Every structure is written in structure tokens, then in C-alpha cells.
């Protein structure tokens, strides 16, 4: 898939070393854990069911990228921060079969899903996938794994749901809209992992740190100075 080197961004949050990956995930080396948000598997399928001619291929793409991450980092634990399945209409035989085959390739990997709004409607993944399904906030180390952005009394929240994108402007009227990681004082929002997911613009404020993803790298955006 990506044979050229991609450059992650190392941060130190909640006294833990983390890597923000240009593959739209967070790697926690000390625990061999990957955090991934907003996979929205089967979103294309549910659009097709409602009459929109969205082409097939996104599920394969998503699963291939997950496999790449597993091969690259050899995680022991993969935590999905919600919206694993997009809708009930996503539970097609093709998709479930593809998921089953993917799971067979990584049998020893512990997978946890923190329920998100789409999961509540789509239902939990099939039992045979051996995915532990929990509700937010789910505490792991110094982090609170959530789906919806929120704050937690004692732990740093890692969340998804808002599919953050940042609009960058540059010389010669250049404009780019890039998915990004958002670090607020007590919560971190991850960009959506899924192919065929939209994005919502993130508000810049001086206490927020934005890390844009593009061109195979993660870029720290200088904070807005008034």
C-alpha cells in the first residue's frame, strides 16, 4: 500500500509517549496499542441501499490499511473509538465475510470497540469476530477511550466522532483542507480513519493544538497568535 516512508509525529501527553500517525491512528508504544476512530465500515453499502450509486472498494481499502498498520507496528491491542459499523444496512454478507477473513489474519490481536452513535444503530459486530464491545468512557492507562468528545475527571480523553479537518491557507491563494488530530487541554480528537467519510472544520483557538495530516506526514500547525 504505502511503500514510501510516512512520517509520524511524536508527542508526550498524559506522561506517555504517543505517535500521531499519518495513517489516521494513534500509536502508544509502551502498551503496543493502536487507537483508531470512525471506521464507518459499510457506509458505501448503506448509501447504495438507499439508492446512491457509490462504488464498491472502500471496505477492502479500510481493511487493507488496518492490515498495513498491524504489519508495521505489531500491536497487541487495537482500540476502536466508535462508529465501527456505519449502519444496520451495512451488515451485508459481503462485508461480514470480508471482516471475518480479516479477523482470521490477525487472530491474536486483542480488539476493543468503544460504542459510538452509529454502533448503537448498527448493532454490535458479530460475536465470532471476538471484538470486546464496551461503552464510553473506557479507561486504559492514563487515557479514557471514548467516541464523543468529552472531558474526564482524571483521564485524558481520546475520542473521535467529529471527523476534524483544518483549512490551511498559504501564499498565492493556496488552500488545503486536511484531516487533523486536535489536542485540547483534556481531550484529543482523532481524524476519521474510514475511506468515504466526510469532515467537519475545526475551530482554531489559542489553547488548541492542531496536527494536520497530508502528503504522508503529520504537521504541527503553529498556534493562532492574536
Amino acid at each position, binding site marked *: 500500500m504505502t511503500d514510501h516512508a510516512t512520517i509520524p509525529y511524536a508527542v508526550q501527553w498524559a506522561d506517555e509517549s504517543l505517535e500521531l500517525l499519518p495513517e489516521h491512528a494513534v500509536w502508544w508504544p509502551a502498551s503496543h496499542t493502536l487507537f483508531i476512530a470512525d471506521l464507518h465500515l459499510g457506509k458505501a453499502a448503506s448509501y447504495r441501499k438507499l439508492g446512491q450509486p457509490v462504488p464498491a472498494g472502500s471496505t477492502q481499502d479500510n481493511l487493507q490499511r488496518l492490515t498495513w498498520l498491524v504489519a508495521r507496528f505489531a500491536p497487541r491491542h487495537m482500540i476502536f473509538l466508535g462508529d465501527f459499523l456505519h449502519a444496520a444496512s451495512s451488515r451485508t454478507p459481503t462485508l461480514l465475510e470480508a471482516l471475518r477473513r480479516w479477523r482470521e489474519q490477525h487472530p491474536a490481536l486483542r480488539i476493543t470497540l468503544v460504542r459510538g452513535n452509529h454502533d448503537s444503530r448498527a448493532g454490535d459486530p458479530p460475536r465470532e469476530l471476538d471484538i470486546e464491545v464496551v461503552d464510553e468512557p473506557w479507561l486504559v492507562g492514563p487515557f479514557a477511550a471514548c467516541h464523543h468528545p468529552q472531558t474526564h475527571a482524571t483521564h485524558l480523553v481520546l475520542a473521535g466522532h467529529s471527523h476534524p479537518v483544518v483549512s490551511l491557507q498559504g501564499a498565492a491563494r493556496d488552500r*488545503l483542507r486536511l484531516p487533523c488530530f486536535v489536542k485540547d487541554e483534556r481531550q484529543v480528537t482523532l481524524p476519521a480513519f474510514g*475511506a*468515504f467519510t466526510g469532515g467537519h472544520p475545526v475551530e482554531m483557538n489559542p489553547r488548541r493544538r492542531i496536527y494536520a495530516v*497530508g502528503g*504522508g506526514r503529520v504537521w*504541527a500547525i503553529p498556534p493562532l497568535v492574536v
Partner: protein
Amino acid sequence: MPEGLWEQKSAFEFPILQRDWSALPTPQTLLAETLTSREGAHLFLYPFAGRHVHLGLASLLAWRVAQHAPRTFSMAVNDYGFELLCADAVDWPQLLPSLLAAPGSADDLLAEVLASLNASELAKRRFREIARVCGLIFQSHPGEARSSKQLQASSSLFWEVFKKYDPGNRLLQQAESELLQQELDINRLRSSLTRMSNQTLVVKLLKRPTPFAFPLLVARLREKLSNEQLADRIARMVAQLEKAAGTRSMAPAADAVLDTLVHGQDALADSASPRPRRERKKSRPLPPL
């Protein structure tokens, strides 16, 4: 130049300004103007061929320049001419004669035009209309309830998904063929290029935007053409943001930019040290045309 220039001078004096600051285009001359500003290097060219052909010409010229080295161009068009804006310097006086040489065969031109299509976002913009007409995206009217929340997706998202998983899709082809019929009509492009190659090229280096250049300079609806790596474009933006953060100033406010545009290079001299913001007098309405 005194403040309130545009309000004080009447429309009849604009051709005089154009002539004094640059030159008046004639049927025998093709006027080109270059300008350097805070935004980068501007080229203004006035073929007077109508905005559709201008978009094709701008795209083609930008593409040809980008063959020498990876570039990102911002383009603006109107019925008089077009603007090409690049963050890095372009030696327009040196390049233009060869860029505007008489065109070869229609097939060669078509190949170039198709190549330039992929580097620009013209097809993506066309696709937006097509997506709306065929019901892929919904644009409700004020007060109207939005249709099924389940089905909201932007035309950009559809564009990406089609490009990635179904590049031969009919809707994408439709966007391309519409462009080839209008902005990128090979025959019209060819005859424009032929006419331009028979004119005398006049290149003027501007200190400030002329009456012809100004409407293009401030045009908001712009197209983009790029064959640069995405990482390079982002690096440039981030470097600029870091520089701005370092000098403890935000991106210049509209007033400051307008100042620079109206008063030209002189206003740029003090960009490093902060100037006290001058109170702008309320402008008088423009005289009727």
C-alpha cells in the same frame, strides 16, 4: 498615490492610468503584465477571447510552465484576460514567447490539455454541478427541511470516491467532456493561440496593479493547477504560519492587504515592523459607469 484613488478618478480616466502604468492593448499587440506582491508572482495576460477560452488558456500556460519544475498556480479569469499567480518567482518575460508559440497539431494540443486537466480542479468543479443535477448531493432551499440525514455527502467526497474506486465512471467522464466542449474547446484554443502568436507581445513589469489587472487580482472565484507534491505545498504553508507566529502577527487584515494592492510595493517595505493602523475614511460611492 492619494487615498481614495478609485473614488476620485472617474471611469474615463482609467484608460489613461492603464496607459501610464502599463500599456493599452491593441489588436496588433498582446499585453502581458507581471507583478510581485506579498502573495507571490502574478502574470496578467489579456487575449480578449472570453472567459471560457481564458480558463483553457490559463490552464494550458500554467501546465506548460509546470513542466519545467513542479508548481502550484492560482488562476482567475474574466472576459478581458486571466491571471496566473504562483508563490515562487516565474521568469515570465523569458518564458512567454516560447509558451505562446504557434500551436502544433490539434492532437498534440489535446494531449496537453488532457494532461493539464488532471493537474487542475476544473473537472472537480464541473462535477459539483453534475452531482447536483443527478441527485447525488442535496441543496435545500431556505426553510426547506433537509432530506434524509443518512444521505448527506459533499460533491468532493463523491468525487474522491469515484476517482479512487471507479475512475471510468460516466459522471466523471461527463465532467471531462463538458470541459472539453467549453473551456477546453480545442478548436477555439487553437485559433486563440494562433491569433496570439501573430500579435506582438508587450510585457510590462508593474509596480502596482493596473485598472485591467485589479479585477483579476481581487477575484474570489479562482481555479487551481498544481503538479507539486502535497507535502511541499503543506510545508510552504506551515513555514509561512510559523513565520507569522514568530513575528507575533496574524495573517494581514483586509485593510492592510488592500493598502498593499492600491499603493503597491512601497507599502510592502514595512511589513516586518508593525505600522500603526491608519483610520480609513468612509469611501464615496463610485461614479456611475
